[in-house]
């Protein structure tokens, strides 16, 4: 993420913190889709992801003034989303079951589409890897967060994040090569 984008997010956080009319609508407009994608990658269901997102907005509206560094708006929102989604997962499944979650809604987009270039294949491949790897890769691909920021969001060390990104990418590569040579879903 370039410095101009970071400044825009920082400015948005400051507008929300100052209580400017319309700032929260802008926040939702900018962050809704990426947070929904992230929540869906954790919960495995679009409808659960929407419930998570609803809670995220409630927490965000109430807590954004306590955000000390407005520049950390995006990592903060992902941290909030992570906490809510993990709580829901714990309530619904055991962690082991969550690892096996396949997002049923995502299966619709599973068929490789070469017309849409790599993104559709990456999206489908993300569906096939474990939760820990999927989570960090979504943050990496979607927001280009730094290792430090991702570590803070998921609550582990930077080394663990680096390792998960590395092995996640290797798994993705294997899956994508399988797709390329027509061996993936056989």
């Amino acid at each position: 993420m370039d410095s101009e984008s970071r400044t825009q997010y920082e400015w948005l956080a400051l507008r929300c913190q100052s209580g400017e009319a319309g700032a929260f609508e802008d926040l939702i407009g900018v962050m809704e889709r990426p947070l929904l994608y992230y929540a869906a990658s954790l919960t495995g269901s679009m409808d659960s992801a929407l419930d998570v997102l609803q809670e995220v907005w409630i927490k965000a509206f109430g807590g954004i003034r306590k955000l000390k560094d407005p520049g950390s708006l995006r990592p903060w929102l992902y941290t909030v989303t992570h906490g809510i989604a993990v709580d829901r997962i714990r309530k619904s499944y055991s962690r082991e079951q969550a690892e096996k979650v396949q997002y049923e809604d995502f299966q619709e987009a599973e068929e490789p589409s070469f017309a849409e270039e790599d993104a559709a294949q990456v999206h489908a491949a993300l569906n096939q890897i474990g939760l820990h790897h999927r989570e960090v890769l979504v943050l990496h691909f979607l927001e280009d967060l730094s290792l430090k920021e991702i570590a803070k969001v998921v609550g582990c060390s930077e080394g663990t994040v680096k390792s998960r990104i590395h092995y996640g990418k290797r798994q993705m590569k294997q899956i994508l090569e399988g797709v390329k040579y027509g061996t993936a879903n056989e």
Partner: protein
Amino acid sequence: MAQQTSNLREGLLAALPQPENVAAYREQTAALLAKHAKALRWEKITANTFVERLPRSPGRIGGA
């Protein structure tokens, strides 16, 4: 590189399927926004009222 990341990001977001209960979500989010906007307005009104009722500053205290 940044452009490549941006394209991938947009592609992934475009691949996100439309949730079934999006109408209920939109409704709840709009209600939440309205409630929050009302709270902010009320906060400003009370803050302004409070400031207006404060006694005027006597100016510098203990000036040279």
